[in-house]
């Protein structure tokens, strides 16, 4: 029974070995000629003016998270769309309820001020 999994185990082994090997090979083979300019953070060619570890507005995170939530939920529309004809009215109603539920969420974040930027 277990022997069926042997290729997978083999595969895991190769992956792990490669990952470890790559780390070492990189360090061993790569040329190292460090200079201050090379150590600068890359900011599209602009010389950085301050530390990269500055604080960001929390609104970035909130907006990003909200985007991802609604973005992910919308994925459900795609499989639904492929069989909506067969589902007929039932499918339309179901998806209506689904979207309405999302709408409540949207209304909620809106009213709570999560979308405001200041």
């Amino acid at each position, binding site marked *: *029974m*277990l022997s069926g999994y042997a290729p997978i185990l083999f595969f895991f082994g190769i992956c792990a070995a490669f990952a470890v090997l790559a780390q070492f090979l990189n360090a061993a083979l790569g040329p190292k000629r460090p200079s201050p300019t090379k150590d600068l953070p890359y900011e599209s060619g602009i010389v950085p003016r301050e530390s990269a570890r500055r604080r960001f507005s929390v609104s970035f995170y909130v907006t990003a998270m909200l985007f991802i939530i609604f973005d992910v939920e919308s994925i459900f529309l795609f499989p639904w769309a492929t069989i909506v004809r*067969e*589902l007929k009215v*039932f499918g339309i109603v179901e998806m209506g309820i689904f979207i309405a539920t999302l709408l*409540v*969420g949207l*209304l*909620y974040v809106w009213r*709570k001020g999560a979308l405001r930027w200041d």
Partner: protein
Amino acid sequence: MLIAASPVPLTFPGGRDLIGILPELVLGGAFLLLMLLDLVIPASRRSWLAGFALLGIAATFGVTIWAWFDANPGRLVYSGSFAYDRFALFVDAILLVSAGLVVMISPNYLNRRGIHYGEYYALILAATLGMMLLAGATSLMVIFLAIELLSLALYVLSGFSRHEERSQEAALKYLLLGGFASGFLLFGMALIYGETGHTQLAQIAAAIQGQTTLTVDPLLLAGVLLLFIGFAFKISAAPFHSWTPDVYQGAPTSVTTFMSVTTKVAAFAALVRVFTYTFDGGGTHFYQHWEPVVALVAITSMVVGNIAALTQTSVKRMLAYSGIAQAGYILIGVAVGPVLLPSGQTSSFGTIGVLYYLAAYAVTNIGAFAVITIMAGRGEDLDSYDGLRGLAHRRPFVAASMALFLFSLGGFPPTAGFFGKFLVFTAAINAGQVPLALWGIATSAVSAFYYLRVGLLMYQRPAEGAEEYRWSRTGFSGSAVLVATTAGTLILGVMIVLVYTAATASLKGLIV
């Protein structure tokens, strides 16, 4: 034992499916409505939300009662992924009553602690919804989704006291460890799926019964055990309990009240459905392969929970450990659930014990935590042992009902807790698992120590010159909850036929 072993054909859901999840639909609707109401109701009127939440719970409860009579016999809906049966409805009823009681004690408490936000009630409803789904889930996928739904709501609720570090810490611990445990749960599910090729419980059961070889597939067994470990985390059974004391103590007390009871109830319902009734393996006696592990975890929980509770000095923490121990006692019922009698029939005595114990634990534990919740002072929880000293002299009724709850938790007759223990121990003895019952009895004796210690503290005079705790007024809703839980604890103790009959009926209707 197993009904509906033939695969359910995949069909488009229809009206009958909707009826099958009617209680959940009503509660879900109430949840959405509550979210919207929170947006329009001014902050000073937040207590109204508690009223609306209670209405929603009451409506759902009404539908559940109706469904109890409708679901006879029960059926599987949504292509076999959800059971519309009396078993789920019985558990739903326990969950809804618990949620209702918690909602009743919440507004005063939240106001005093200064954390009265509208989301609270919506989250309670969402968690309850998840639990109800878990109680009826007959597909690994639905089980997982339900657990995630209830867990996410509880993560937020544990951190509800936003300005208190302890609460934040509790939420973070619960979230991280909960996610961790979900990993085990999911891995177990993946292995089971991999070995049986199914996610619906009925088909998994058929696949297990179909195994004619004498040796059991180790990966399947590993999957079953990992699934159990995932559940063991949810019911806070040792040694997967380490989050429990910290989270119970850190979370706002009303939330602790809620999750200490309802999570266990829902998770145990799923445990019974999945383990006792799906993994029993019918004629192949598959249960023999996981039963010792469940028994082992049960014993560990009883020992660890009771012994650790001995030296606690905070009531919340003591009750957390007591909850771990209680999980152990209930697990006895799961471990001895599918007993093959010499007559060839299967005895469901242990499972009835589980259901009875859950009902008893729900009323008792809500009562005990409600006392702490109701009496909490402004801005902080007063849950140290010293704070309880002398309670009987100022609040005779509250102290008397607290004493009753402690008696019940300790398993003294004639309270609810006694018969919970009585039934599971009897089941263990009937099943020939006498050592399991002996462990239970021995650890119960240990538990009497710390329960009675708290009970005695309340009846001592406050120490001379000690600072008097400023207990809050009990209030109308608090009194109502205490009266209800006290009555429940007594009724389950002296009229056991009432719930026993319902539990038996619900078990008869259980389908997989």
